[in-house]
């Protein structure tokens, strides 16, 4: 499937306090077309594992009629960026959109933003 990332109101509302549960809950959401959820055999509120070139992240799905089939939309943030590649093709800008990823249902938990930072070598406050 194709991963696209972008802004949402709840992401913007909590962007000045990212340790908050509201921020982590919003940035770990994945919006998919209802038909794609049927194909995956899951419903809104259940989880998927999104993988790109060996990096993966667990997200909670929401059905959204506006999303084109074959794509998923994830609000900007640490969860999506866990799988966004760093290559900028000589422009300075990574591909935050149009990333081909593997998507599979999972029962693994969604990791908090601090856990994601610890995975990368950081330490929670």
């Amino acid at each position, binding site marked *: 499937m194709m991963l696209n990332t972008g*802004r949402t109101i709840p992401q913007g509302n909590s962007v000045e306090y990212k340790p908050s549960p509201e921020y982590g809950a919003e940035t770990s959401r994945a919006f998919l077309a209802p038909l794609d959820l049927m194909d995956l055999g899951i419903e809104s509120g259940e989880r998927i594992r999104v993988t790109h070139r060996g990096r993966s992240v667990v997200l909670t799905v929401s059905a959204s009629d506006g999303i084109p089939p074959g794509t998923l939309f994830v609000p900007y943030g640490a969860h999506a960026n866990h799988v966004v590649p760093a290559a900028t093709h000589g422009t300075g800008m990574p591909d935050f959109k149009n990333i081909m990823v593997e998507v599979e249902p999972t029962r693994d938990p969604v990791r908090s933003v601090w856990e994601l930072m610890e995975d990368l070598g950081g330490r929670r406050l």
Partner: protein
Amino acid sequence: MIVKDVICPFCACLCDDLDVHVEDGRVTGVDNACDLGSHKFMTDHRLEGPIRRTASGWQEIPLEEAIRETAELLEAAERPLLYGWSGTCGEAQSAGVHLAERVGGVIDATTSVCHGPSILAIQEVGHPGCTLGQVKNRADVVVYWGCNPQHAHPRHLSRYTTYADGFFVHNAFKERKVIVADIRGTDSTNLADEFIRLQPGGDYAVLGALRAMVRGKGSVVPPEVAGVSREQLQRIADLCKKAKYGAFFFGMGLTQTAGKYKNIRNAIELVDELSRHTKWTLTPMRGHFNVYGFNEVCTWMTGYPYAVDFARGLAFYNPGETTAVDILARRECDMCLVVASDPAAHFPAEAVEHLASIPVVQLDPFPNLTTAFARIQIPVAVSGIDAEGTAYRMDGVPLRMRKVLDRGCPDDASILREITRIINDGGGP
């Protein structure tokens, strides 16, 4: 106390009609702001004082010690990266450029991960821009391409386009036609008179087809271009040509997809083509409230708008090489000073990982995800709330941000100047 006509320090709309209620040194309410702006004023989770990371946790340290240690780290670094700058005022940005030059570092802004590609395109073919006042008073056709203003710039439509009556547009909601291009249905596409629903990555092709039609070469356009029918494209081309004044706004849907700056170049050349028939302008929907300001400040100080490398003793600019994500992904910098941004939240993980292996100092009022990598974090005043200064709106108009309360916090500029002074004096306050 109510402070009138306050400018909002969230997005680059810089809405200047907010009324902010202040009691006992705290903001207790905000009138006229959107949801995003209100949350920024009302958020009260600031760090109380400077902190330093230790082997087992975090310790509070005096401000003077935090500043001196930051100066020492910058001076000791061979290739420091000074990144961020979009959430602070021009005065701090200016101090940052001076500091970068002094330590021979690289200075880059969040521009490189938002409208950097737009600047690259503008450097190729120019910027047919205008003020938002022109749009409000004149535009009868408005395009939003690859952006969702209802979520990213919630008052853009009510202040400048769909819901804003102007001098020559007396009933905006009825008289202005709004065209929205996106790959998905959004709260903004729901308001469109024409929704161009294109396939992902199809922007360049659809813009090219519209250019052909405006030029009178519609016969070369196939029946469908990236999911958009030739009939709809012809309808849109005709609508744009008949406009008295057209305004083209665009966002990350063009800058972050394949083609990057070439997408924007094609959009600018469409506007150029349309301006042979009528009047059209183009404006990037800049995100952070003063990200445009960094490009202005950096350009008048160095000749380049972002991603400036002073390692050679003079300003060198080469996006793709001197941009922050590339420098981190190549594991090139050996120290990072982050000011008014949060790269750990907004950069790809591969770039963020390098922050864990180098000293990082952050100037930011709030704990954020870059805090997890910081050796030192110095809380500062929030520009536009408890610090004044100059910010540039998305159309390049500079506005003076007000200070609505005083929390006794130093601002970014004073700390950056003190760091530079310590380095110039050879260490020690």
